[in-house]
Structures are given as C-alpha cells and as structure tokens.
C-alpha cells in the first residue's frame, strides 16, 4: 500500500444521538483504498460497515448522526469538512455508491431512465439526448436486455437481480474513481451473485476504478478483494492483503471467524469451531479490547486498556495484545 491512496480514512469517529444518550458507532477507524484496487470490509452485523460507508458519503442520518473526529481524505481533500454542495458534486460523480437495500436505492415513482439520466445531466452537463444515449449504453453494459425499453419501466417491474444491475448502472454512470458497494449481493441468489460480482470486476478493469466492497461473506472477500479490513464492534481488528488475512490471520477474532465457517470440504456433521458469546452492544462496550469477552486468549491486560494498532508487516496491521504470529 505504498502508493498514494485514493481514499484515506484516518481515525474516523462517528456518533449517533439516541434517546438514551450518544453512542459511538465508529471509534478510530483507519484504512486506505488504493486506486484501482478492491478493498473488502468484513465483520458481523452491527460492527459499523454501513456507518463507515455512510460517513464517507456524508449521508449519515440527520440530525442524529455526525462525524465526531478524524478525517476522510479523497484525493487529498478532507470529505469530512466539505459543504453540502461540494459533497453533492463528489457524490455520484467521483464516488458512486450501491446501498445495502436495492429497493430503497431506487425511487419507485420514477422510471429507470429518469433516475439514470438525472445524475448524468447534473454531473456531466450533458444534453438530454446525450444523457439518454449514455444511460442506454450503461444499462446495456450491466447486462440488461432491451435497455431502451427498460429505460421507461419502473423499479417494481424488474426482478431482484435486474434491480441490482440498475443500481450499479446508476452508481457507475458517471465513471466514478471509487465505487462503494454495501452488501451488493446479499439479497440475491448465489447464481445471480456470481453474475453481479463478475460484472463489478469487469467494469472495474474497464474503468480502472477502486472498489470498497462491504460484505459479511468471507467467500466473496477471498474471491474479489486485494485488501481486507476486518471490523469488530466499531473498530478495525485487523487489516492487510487478502493473503495476510486468510493465510496469516493474527487477530483471534479473524482466526475464529475463518475457523467457524462450514466449508464444502469439511466432514459432514463435524463440530464447527465457534466464537463463544456475542458482540457487546454499543452501550456496554468493555473498557479494554472489545473482543475481550469472547476471546480465548484474553488476559488481564486486555480487560484494562484497548490495544493499539500495530504494523506487523507491510500493510498488515493488528490491534491485539496477544496477536498470533505465523
């Protein structure tokens, strides 16, 4: 990761005001996305993956959510401090996003064409005619049959897989330098998932864009990502190249996660290893390491103070007092 990153998230802190006080959903999250590379963000439900994406896009729910610390440098510019208008220019134009819920990402009362053409006209200053032409092109490119007819259809007329293609088409219409995809295939069947992931890979090669792929599926991570960020309860537990994470996992959480997935070649009905217990809630986070209550290696030290992130090899960073060396 020595080259200049396209995106550098540095010590990001994101908070929400709730009825029962302020909760800190992200607590010092740092990672880089290099140009043209795919970074996977993985972790269990509630660990802060979507909040990370929404913070970068400056789309945190208002007025409850806010960036309370750190910065988000995109091509050197701190997105955390941009005005709404400046950010609107970056969004869609330089950074595209595919949201976790494909249906909420599409406006049910507008045609596919209208939603596709809007962004192109706004950001690229195209004539209607030119925008329509490019819209049809991109629909065709994401594998939608008869794209010119589809332009005048509404989201509910499409299948789940087709909708997700449309969402991707909209995110990519302006050829952004970075695509943030939040669980783009989770709601889809495996055969359709394979189509969509292949599509993202192809378009990435063609356009040279970087991708930040959020998923909880370690199989998807292994097959599509160069770098991986493993999150746990609002912090980064471990990050590194996909080989660091799969071949030399150093954090007990990463190791536990990798060992607990059933694989096609494991003995049927054999015992799967488990990570005992469950993730602490944001309101009762432990004082020390957040994984402490489930960690097989936890010691007194772990309960006292959160471990700092250490670089254990080029690009491979771990936050653990008892990291495993391989």
């Amino acid at each position: 990761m020595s080259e200049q990153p396209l995106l550098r998230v540095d010590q990001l802190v994101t908070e929400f005001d709730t009825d029962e006080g302020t909760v800190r959903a992200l607590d010092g999250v740092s990672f880089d996305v290099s140009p043209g590379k795919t970074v996977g963000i993985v972790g269990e439900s509630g660990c802060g993956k979507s909040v990370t994406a929404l913070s970068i896009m400056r789309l945190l729910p208002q007025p409850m959510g806010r960036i309370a610390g750190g910065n988000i440098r995109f091509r050197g510019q701190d997105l955390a401090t941009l005005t709404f208008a400046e950010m609107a220019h970056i969004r869609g134009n330089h950074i595209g996003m595919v949201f976790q819920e494909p249906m909420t990402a599409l406006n049910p009362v507008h045609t596919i064409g209208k939603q596709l053409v809007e962004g192109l006209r706004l950001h690229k200053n195209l004539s209607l005619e030119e925008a329509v032409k490019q819209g049809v092109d991109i629909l065709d490119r994401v594998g939608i049959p008869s794209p010119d007819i589809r332009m005048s259809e509404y989201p509910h007329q499409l299948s789940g897989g087709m909708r997700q293609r449309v969402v991707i088409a909209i995110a990519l219409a302006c050829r952004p330098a970075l695509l943030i995809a939040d669980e783009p295939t989770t709601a889809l069947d495996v055969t359709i998932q394979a189509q969509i992931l292949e599509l993202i890979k192809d378009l990435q090669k063609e356009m040279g864009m970087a991708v930040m792929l959020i998923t909880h599926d370690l199989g998807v991570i292994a097959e599509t990502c160069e770098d991986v960020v493993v999150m746990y309860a609002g912090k980064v537990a471990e990050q590194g190249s996909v080989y660091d994470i799969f071949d030399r996992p150093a954090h007990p959480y990463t190791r536990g996660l990798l060992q607990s997935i059933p694989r096609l070649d494991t003995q049927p009905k054999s015992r799967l290893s488990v990570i005992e217990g469950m993730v602490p809630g944001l309101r009762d986070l432990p004082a020390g390491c957040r994984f402490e209550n489930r960690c097989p290696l936890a010691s007194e030290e772990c309960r006292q103070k959160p471990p700092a992130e250490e670089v254990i090899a080029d690009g491979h960073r771990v936050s653990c007092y008892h990291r495993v060396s391989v």
Partner: protein
Amino acid sequence: MTPLLEVNDLKMHFPVREGIFNRSRYFNRAVDGVSLHINPGETLGLVGESGCGKSTLGRCIVRLYQPTGGSISFDGSDITHLRPGALRPLRQNIQMIFQDPMESLNSRHTVGEILEEPLLVQGLGKGPERAARVRELLNIVGLPARSVSRYPFEFSGGQRQRIGIARAIALNPRLIVCDEPVSALDVSIQSQVLNLMVDLQKEFNLAYLFIAHDLAVVKHVSDRIAIMYLGRIVETAESETLYKEARHPYTRSLISAIPIPDPHRNVEREILTGDVPSPIAPPAGCHFHPRCPRAEERCKVEYPSLELVGEAHRSACHLNNQLGASADSTG
C-alpha cells in the same frame, strides 16, 4: 428401513387471482410434483434459489398448507388430508423452525410461556412438571434458566433461534422442518446454532428437512441433499456425491457459483445467465432450459424425469448419460 416421511408427487398450486370476477385463470405452481423421503434420524438438505418452492414444500409437510395434489405419509400413515382438528397428534411428531424466530415467537409472551405452550396444547403434564420441562429445554439449548421470565426481543438473533429450537423440540418430535434456520445469523453465531442442531439430532434421533440456499451450510449438516428448481426436484444424492459428482447442469452451476473462502483458488466458473423464471408461467420442457448451457432441442419440449444415475443418486436431465460423473464440476 421404512422411511419416516414419504412424499409422493406433491403439488401445491396457488390460485393467482385477477380481474373483477376474482376468478383464477392462472396457478402459481410453487410445488409441482415433488417426491422425496426422509429416514429416521436423517437430515435431508433442500437447496434452491429464492421462490423455487422450498418453504411451500416445508409448509405442506407440516400441514400448514393443504396440498393440491399428491400424498404425504408419516410413519406409514397418510397425513395428506388430515383435517385441521385432527392435526394435533401430528404436531407432536412434526415441528418447524423458521428463519426469523421473531416472526414465529409471540412477542407478548415470556420465553417460559412460549416453551410451555406446546405442552399445554397437548395436555401434557401438570404445572410443576411443565415448569421442569421448560427449564430442561432451556438447558438443552444452552440458555440461562433466568430466560424464563424474559421476552423474545431481549435476546440476540442467535439466542432467539435457540428459543425457536427449544420450542420445536419441546414435544420430542421425530421430524423437524427447518426453514433457513441460520440464514439470518452471523457466521460466528451460525456455527453455534449448527453445532446445537447436530448435537440434538444425535441425542434424540431427530430427522431434519433442512432448507437453505447456502450449499456449504447444507452440505455440512445433511446426509442427503435435494436440489430444487421451479417447483421440482432436479437432482438428489448423498451429500458427498452431490458435491463431487453432480450431474444436473443446474446443480453444477450452483456449486460453481459458491464463493470459496480461499484466495489461492482461482475458479473458472460457469456463470448462469438470466434470472429464475416465474412459477406462474414456467418454461415448457425442462424448466431450466432457458438458462442451461447444454440445452438441446428436446429440452425445450419434453420434461426430463428424475432418473437413477448412480447409487441413491437421481437427476432430471435429458443429457444424464452424456454428462459423466467423472467431470469435476468445481473446477
């Protein structure tokens, strides 16, 4: 061995209502001629894409639905046409677990009440005995005894699924239809629940119909697997055989589409084009033919029947004999 459950040519055609007369001219053939069996203590995995009819099949078996054709027999007796009033003894033997336990657990009842309910309905035991059984059930599924007075929303997803499992085993059933029991859970929690289910099966000689779309999970828990496509079973075999020697082109694509958590594996996969067609107007001939990479002319007109292609291995494809068992579908 006589099978515990035997399903023959089962059909569940839902009427699709339309027009001002509310007459149904079309049917959603959610389950369209399924035959299968499950032996005591065995797990049959059922895999297929969204909408192919897995849940509908499961619901017919527990007789939440009245099938529109075919037959179901349990332990040798025909249960296809049992009237709702006559279903009570069946409930003792066949239970169901759902994907989202929150939907199936009454949120206004405490866990104690939820677990006691099946005992009450069956008129089993006196108050103290039932209370003891509830404590025992909590203990079996690994929940603390104090959970009795708590409500479902106070528990995490994995814990709620344990409550759903405890309720399902309350009456010592012999078969549990498990509809996506771990699909909503994180991997670290999923493995806890899968281990529990395997342990319970061994301890109580339970049979499972295990429905899921994650083939790796299904393969982990199943003795045999049935692959479903648009209301029909297209292939069935022992788990290991199915994974290593899949015959049907659909099974092969399904296996090849599974993302493998190993970055060193470079899979050349066969990516299926197109979406799953609607069960209201399924394609003629082999339902899979519009997406099948090997389809020939006759596939478009003639439906292939499920034929024996190896020991306890059946596949419904016209090219069964040309698609050799030796070809490793996973590349």
